[in-house]
Each structure stands twice: as structure tokens, then as C-alpha cells.
């Protein structure tokens, strides 16, 4: 009989406390608190992270960390990795939701050989990013790779 691989499951917790009006603090064990609020479009303040922005930030970071994990495994290290992400919130059938997230990383590699490896890695990043797998909207990953110092 073929032994079936078992996969672990993981749990993530985050506490939240309301502070005033539309603001709150998110807390999690040993991490520093983050102030959160409504986005400015919904009567919030621009200097505070909103859940919509954090969600887009989580997708952006998840792609980056997934790429970096694979890069370590393939023994390459980028010179730099910077990525912009944009999420679109729109009304579908009477309900607002994030319909699309576009992630555009710019990655600088040390050599042409590293660049070829990075290109190969990028092909499997999206399907291995836990956060993009967890969204109902469409996620697009458009990386730009170049060799540089």
C-alpha cells in the first residue's frame, strides 16, 4: 500500500481591542501592537493601517517570503527584492469585496545563472503562497528580474 503523506495544519491567532471610534490595536504574543483603523475612503485616517491594506500587504509579503524560501533551497540569494502590490475593492452583486490583487516584484540577481533559477522559482510562487490561495479574488503576479549589483 502506498503510504499517504500527512500534512500538518497550523493555527494563527491575533487579538484585537477597540480603542476609539474606528480604531483598534492588533496584538499577538511577542509582537509589537499595530494600530488599525478604517481606510480614509470609509471615514478612517490615512496614517493607520486598515484591514484592506493589511490584506494586500499580506499577499505582497507572502509572495516575497515564498520566493525567498525557494531561493534558499536553490542556494541563490537576491541582491534586492522590492515589490509593489495593489488590491481592488469593488462592489459585486451588492457586496463589496477585494476582487483583484496585483503583485509586481522587482528582483535584482547577482548573475545570469541566478536569474535563470529565479525565473524558474517564480513559476511556482503563486500556487505556493498560502495567502493568495486563501482569497476568492484573482491574484496576478508579474515579476521583473534583472542582473545587477
Amino acid at each position: 500500500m502506498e503510504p499517504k503523506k500527512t500534512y500538518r495544519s497550523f493555527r494563527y491567532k491575533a487579538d484585537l481591542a477597540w480603542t476609539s471610534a474606528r480604531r483598534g490595536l492588533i496584538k499577538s504574543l511577542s509582537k509589537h501592537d499595530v494600530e488599525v483603523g478604517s481606510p480614509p475612503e470609509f471615514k478612517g485616517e490615512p496614517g493607520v493601517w486598515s484591514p484592506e491594506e493589511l490584506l494586500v500587504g499580506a499577499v505582497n509579503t507572502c509572495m516575497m517570503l515564498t520566493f525567498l524560501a525557494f531561493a534558499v533551497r536553490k542556494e541563490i540569494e537576491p541582491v534586492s527584492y522590492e515589490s509593489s502590490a495593489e488590491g481592488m475593492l469593488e462592489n459585486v452583486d451588492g457586496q463589496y469585496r477585494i476582487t483583484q490583487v496585483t503583485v509586481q516584484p522587482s528582483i535584482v540577481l547577482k548573475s545570469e545563472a541566478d536569474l535563470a533559477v529565479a525565473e524558474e522559482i517564480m513559476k511556482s510562487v503563486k500556487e505556493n503562497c498560502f495567502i493568495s490561495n486563501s482569497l476568492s479574488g484573482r491574484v496576478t503576479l508579474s515579476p521583473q528580474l534583472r542582473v545587477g549589483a
Partner: protein
Amino acid sequence: MDGRRPHRVFRFRNNATWKSGRTGVISASGKPDLATSSPPEFGGRPEYWSPEDLFAATVNVCLMQTFMAFAARSNVGVVSYESEVEGVLERAEGRYRFTEFTVRPVLVLQTAADLERARTLMESAESSCLISESVRANVRLVPEFRLAAMGQRTVA
């Protein structure tokens, strides 16, 4: 012709920059930078927010904000709102993803009338939270409503 006001489209932008190892920074115009890392189970550092933690937090925060917006509109006296979220990340249909979030808000209300209205508003919040609508996972809401003790009945 349909005379309804067209719904607006909102865009949210930010940047992620790699620092070293499995850590980076998320930045967005005008906001404090947020240090992030893979979760410790995946070689990251426990003192930083991981995308998984942030993702779970967005579900929690969105429900609170939706509820508080409704409560403000209906003049419901909320003394405090604290909420824990737990997200389950597991392999489903061949890929790891969040399959369930359990949100446990504990609300303290000023009066018995506020408490009753809060129950109804929480149900509305559950069905109109836009983050819950944006995730594939099942969002389970388990609220607890308490009446403020005497002397605690003014909004902090």
C-alpha cells in the same frame, strides 16, 4: 435607465521590501512601516508579524469596524470590544490555504437595551464584512455580550 448611483472602486497600494533572511518590511504612504517575517514554523522570527498573522487579523479587524460603524449609526453604547481570531491553515485540494477563521468578540454594553441591539447589529456585521467576503475560508463568528457593571457605564 437605471438611476442608481454607481458603486465606487477603491484601490489599496503598498510595498514590500526584503531586508535579510526571511524578514522584510511592508510600507505604504503615510503609515508606519511594518516589519514582517515568515511564521516561526516556516523559519521566520516570532517577534514579527507574518502574512498569516496579518491575514487572520484583517478578518478580526474588519468585523469590529463593521460592527462599530453600525453601532455608531444606531447610537448603541459600547463600553469595550475585544476580540480573538484563530485561523486554520491546512492543506485542502492539494494546496495550503486558510480553511476557517473563528472570531470571538467579547463586547461590553452599557444597558440591556444596547445589548439586545448589539446582537442584531452583530448579525448584520457578519453578513456585510468585506474581508469575510474576500476570503475563501469559512468565517465563524462566536460573539459574547456582557452588560457593564455599575459605574462602568460611560464610554471610555
